[in-house]
């Protein structure tokens, strides 16, 4: 199989639309990491993030004909799908947690519901090398942010997307994105200082 890595997203999408499995797979190779990180940022759960990645690409495959490159770049379209999937999963997790925590024997733990929604994975080696405690504080503060603030911040700080790209994914304006990111940072700093 020819290496598809050098081809533009647009070309890969075009060939994939024409039925090329190799070109679709090249898109999967290119974006699995990004979609996984965004899914994890929103859901806070590695297992759910993996499911979101699978569902996202399945939806992309089914709706490839609906993608309009004049309206959005493939990456932003893909991330918008990923975010929607992640939000659905997050809502399911919260409903499950709510049912669990409303059982009488767990009612007293309800104050920690937010943390229960986001089971913390084992920190990776890099995080251990940094200040483990500080990293965990930031992670905890992140989980307390509203989804939109958290996603906006992660798309900017981690993925380096522009305000305009994030605005397309979140279906809002670029100035609203600036504001979301600023509020997210302020809240995390306040939380970590406590």
């Amino acid at each position, binding site marked *: 199989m020819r290496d598809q890595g050098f081809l533009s997203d647009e070309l890969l999408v075009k060939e994939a639309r024409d039925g090329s499995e190799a070109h679709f797979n090249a898109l999967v190779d290119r974006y699995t990491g990004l979609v996984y990180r965004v899914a994890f940022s929103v859901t806070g759960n590695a297992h759910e993030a993996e499911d979101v990645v699978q569902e996202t690409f399945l939806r992309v495959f089914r709706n490839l004909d609906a993608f309009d490159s004049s309206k959005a770049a493939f990456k932003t379209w893909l991330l918008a799908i990923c975010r929607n999937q992640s939000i659905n999963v997050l809502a399911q997790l919260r409903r499950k947690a709510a049912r669990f925590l409303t059982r009488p024997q767990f009612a007293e733990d309800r104050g920690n519901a937010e943390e229960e929604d986001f089971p913390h994975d084992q920190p990776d080696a890099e995080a251990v090398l940094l200040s483990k405690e500080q*990293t965990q504080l930031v992670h905890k503060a992140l989980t307390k942010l509203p989804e939109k603030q958290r996603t906006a911040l992660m798309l*900017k700080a981690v993925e380096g997307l522009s305000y305009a790209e994030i605005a397309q994914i979140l279906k809002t304006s670029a100035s609203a994105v*600036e504001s979301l990111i600023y509020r997210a940072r302020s809240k995390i*700093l306040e939380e970590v200082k406590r």
Partner: protein
Amino acid sequence: MNCEHYRKQLSKQVDRDLDAALTEELEKHLASCPGCRSFRDGMEVLGRELQAVSERKPPTGLAERVKERVARERRRERVLLPAWTRAPLVAMITLAAVGLGNLAGRSIGTMLSSNGSDDSVEYTLTAQAPSFADVLSDNGSEENGQ
């Protein structure tokens, strides 16, 4: 300008989205405001921490599992698709059969009428509407002016 204004600017500066004039104005404020300097330091640390929290690799083999799942979906579609494609095919075959039948009927009729052996057949054939084969081949009959 209050500190919140400058802190918003700081957030934009971290994102490398602040123009030179505003950066200069911000630096002037920072020189005289320890609170905002502390905020800036916090944002820098936060930026590094966010990288640490989020630089996670997808589980091994995830891309391959995605490809396999999409391939299964592709195969499923291929199995389902002929059901869609069969309908026009059946319609085409039916139309062709009707057309051929019509042509064959006309040929036999013409043959019989040229023999002049059966007046009732001749009457039936001359009275009928243009055949389906005529419509398909867009020949029409001379009587309807086509």
